[in-house]
């Protein structure tokens, strides 16, 4: 089954034999992760994400043979998409300086109708606090906590020493907890 085929074989199949099926599968395998990285970085505009990803995947289809397997393909792609994402963020910041700040409004996560008020408040506060973090911190938290990457992989993806990942993660959690208090959340457990 193609689902079980390891990344390096799919890459080889694509770069040496131009097997589009292999490439499509590889792209689908990592597209969701790439999207999550962009959203974590703070790129909220759907069109921007689409444009960036289309260019990104085209570029990768031409250059993926450069991946030598020193790190996992996920890390390799994560480094590449982060670079593009940061570039786009810089351009957006420049644009926002010259335009009004309407686009900067926070996206609120709609609470489902049956959702407990406490949980809805917690979701909102967490989202706001997380968005207030520095993009690099958000990404570190995302890799370690949400994606469950190892410290070593996270360090590779961010280009920092492993010790830095550990200490920064701890600081990020402290920061988040402090921000949650500012948002009005006092407990650590749901009622």
């Amino acid at each position, binding site marked *: 089954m193609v689902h079980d085929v390891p990344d390096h074989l799919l890459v080889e199949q694509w770069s040496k034999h131009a097997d*589009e099926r292999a490439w499509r599968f590889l792209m689908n395998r990592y597209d969701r992760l790439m999207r*999550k990285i962009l*959203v974590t970085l703070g790129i909220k505009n759907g069109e921007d994400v689409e444009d960036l990803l289309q260019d990104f*995947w*085209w570029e990768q289809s031409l250059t993926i043979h450069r991946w030598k397997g020193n790190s996992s393909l996920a890390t390799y792609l994560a480094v590449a998409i982060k670079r593009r994402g940061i570039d786009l963020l810089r351009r957006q910041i420049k644009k926002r300086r010259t335009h009004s700040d309407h686009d900067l409004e926070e*996206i609120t*996560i709609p609470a489902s109708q049956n959702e407990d008020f406490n949980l809805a408040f917690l979701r909102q506060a967490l989202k706001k606090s997380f968005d207030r973090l520095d993009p690099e911190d958000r990404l570190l938290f995302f890799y370690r906590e949400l994606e469950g990457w190892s410290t070593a992989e996270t360090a590779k993806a961010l280009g920092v020493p492993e010790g830095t990942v550990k200490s920064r993660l701890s600081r990020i959690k402290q920061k988040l907890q402090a921000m949650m208090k500012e948002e009005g959340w006092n407990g650590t*457990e749901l009622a």
Partner: protein
Amino acid sequence: MEQNWPKEWTQILDQSLESQITQQTDWEKVKSRAREKKRLLILRSWLGGLAVAAVVTWGLVGFLLSQNDDNEMAFTTTSEYYTESTTSTYGDLDEIFYLTASLIAEE
């Protein structure tokens, strides 16, 4: 501090992120966008080439015209001199009569 971190916070953040991912990249769209970009790039380079060619032609024509202007200036001066001298002495018809009469006389 790690011990104080509530696990449900991680879950909530994860859910929040997941809920924002609604689409998936379509390889066909990626290819057609790349093709479109390539087409635009070719068109742009063609237009650039045409612009350069137009500038070069314009420069060349300007140069040739300036050369021609010098010749024309000399010619205009001669013809003006000729016209002025003939009209002032004989006029066109007078000149023809004069030339014909001299030919007959020679015969």
